[in-house]
């Protein structure tokens, strides 16, 4: 099997863009990724594309991938839309990696795009929450924040986690987002503000939830032995893993862990030959603040039940033992569903190349980075481990 390297990454700012549709966003991220390949690449060298998209606000539900490669002038190459809810482009990236590992392709594009703010608010209510179980959970009046609220309450019950711990995640990620010119929210917040903002689904307030964003992200991958032809600073894919779980939360035995994440992480660490303590920087799937605390535990950054302690002791801040979500995470950087997974790859590649736009956001000397991308309420999850040099 061949080894795989990332030679270029691009990402639009995440946010609300009245003037940009799904095509414009994708083209913008693509052009940035091509220009990011420092020794240059002819886009025609790209042999295949995998593109994550859920279709929210979509103008083209069927054959989306054909529309996407058409827009970037690559019609002709095989292209596949990957849909795994919020983990769509994490899984698109995984498919691209496997296409190269297998020897089928030398150069592959992985990316994702989502346009969410074009849909009227009432229609958006139909879309949000479609990635959990519809037949039972939704028809009991459950919402997507509601499902994570159920996890949060169990975590509080079983491990003594408090609402303050959830708010600490929001404060940290807003602090990082404020340093990120590509983040949806670029302003800090306080513990008090996070705790006292309106409830969305008890015990989660609006500050425990990520925003609805537009955005796109693209990564260009190639066979590792060809990487130096394109760039002096390739970032290598050291390992990956993926998993699934019961779709409905109520059918799971334990609400305080995502089995899909645990399975994905285990495979990724094994393939990379590392332990959780070897990770220097991580982008994890904090669609809700409780999700970040659960991710600390599922990814092995701390013991089960000790996620609250990890955030409280500042270990996941930039400068801490294991900085998590230096980009601001889904919480502050934003969450354009289909674009989030390769957006995490974008951030980790920049961190490992020591290229964070603002030095205050750079995790110094980072050599090994991890991305963790979850679909819905844990129905799917994918983990990648990236390595410098």
């Amino acid at each position, binding site marked *: 099997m061949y080894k795989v390297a990332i030679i270029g990454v691009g990402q639009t700012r995440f946010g609300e863009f009245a003037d940009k549709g799904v095509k414009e966003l994708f083209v913008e991220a693509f052009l940035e990724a091509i220009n990011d390949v420092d020794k240059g690449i002819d886009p025609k060298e790209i042999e295949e594309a995998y593109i994550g998209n859920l279709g929210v606000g979509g103008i083209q539900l069927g054959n989306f991938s054909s529309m996407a490669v058409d827009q970037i002038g690559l019609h002709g190459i095989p292209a596949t839309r990957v849909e795994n809810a919020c983990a769509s482009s994490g899984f698109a990236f995984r498919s691209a990696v496997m296409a190269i590992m297998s020897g089928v392709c030398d150069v592959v594009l992985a990316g994702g795009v989502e346009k969410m703010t074009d849909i009227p608010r*009432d229609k958006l*209510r*139909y879309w949000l*929450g*479609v990635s959990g179980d*519809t*037949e*039972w*959970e*939704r*028809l*009991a*009046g*459950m*919402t997507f*924040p*509601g499902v994570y*609220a*159920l*996890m949060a*309450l*169990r975590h509080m*019950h079983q491990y003594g986690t408090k609402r303050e711990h959830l708010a600490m995640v929001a404060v940290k990620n807003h602090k990082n987002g404020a340093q990120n010119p590509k983040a949806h929210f670029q302003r800090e917040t306080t513990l008090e503000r996070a705790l006292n903002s*309106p*409830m*969305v*689904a*008890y*015990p*989660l307030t609006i500050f425990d939830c990520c925003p609805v964003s537009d955005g796109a992200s693209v990564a260009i991958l190639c066979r590792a032995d060809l990487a130096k032809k394109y760039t002096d600073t390739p970032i290598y894919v050291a390992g990956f893993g993926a998993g699934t779980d*019961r779709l*409905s*939360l*109520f*059918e799971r035995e334990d*609400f305080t862990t995502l089995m899909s994440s645990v399975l994905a992480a285990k495979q990724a660490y094994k393939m990379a030959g590392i332990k959780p303590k070897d990770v220097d920087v991580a982008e994890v799937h904090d669609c809700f603040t409780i999700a970040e605390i659960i991710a600390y535990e599922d990814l092995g950054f701390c013991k089960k039940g000790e996620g609250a302690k990890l955030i409280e002791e500042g270990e996941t801040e930039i400068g801490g033992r294991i900085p998590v979500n230096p980009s601001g995470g889904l919480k502050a950087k934003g969450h354009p569903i289909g674009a989030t997974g390769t957006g995490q790859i974008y951030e980790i590649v920049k961190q490992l190349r020591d290229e964070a736009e603002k030095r205050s956001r750079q995790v110094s000397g980072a050599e090994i980075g991890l991305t963790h991308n979850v679909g819905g309420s844990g129905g799917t999850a994918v983990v990648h481990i990236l390595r410098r040099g």
Partner: protein
Amino acid sequence: MAYVSIPAYWKTIPQRYSLIGLRCKNCGYINFPAREICAKCGKKSEFEPIKLSGKGKIYSYTIIAAGSTPPEFLLQEKYVGSYPVAIIELVEGPKIVAQLTDYKIEELKIGMEVEAVFRKIYEDNQVIRYGIKFRPIRKRRIHKGS
């Protein structure tokens, strides 16, 4: 615009109206909702229908804030405002997701004993969808005479 079509809803009525679960004859696990391959042992075994008692405890709950409900529940949001949804762990083992009714918000807690009642769930396409909600089990004192 229906999320779960009327025929799809009808097919699950025995479970939605009467809490009928399926006990796997291979491993004994009670599957709820119904399915063809056992969620525990992964076998396409034979199932024995079993009527669940509808008694259980709150395993976890949340309160869905008005303004964030799914569109199917806009009417409820309009007239009731925020409402609680819970995961109930039934005495027979399976967990199910349902709304609570006849509750006092301040007394809700994990471990609270509840029982199933038949209620209107929501309206869609001018069809009323019925199903199960849960209410706290109260020990009532019966007063006779005046």
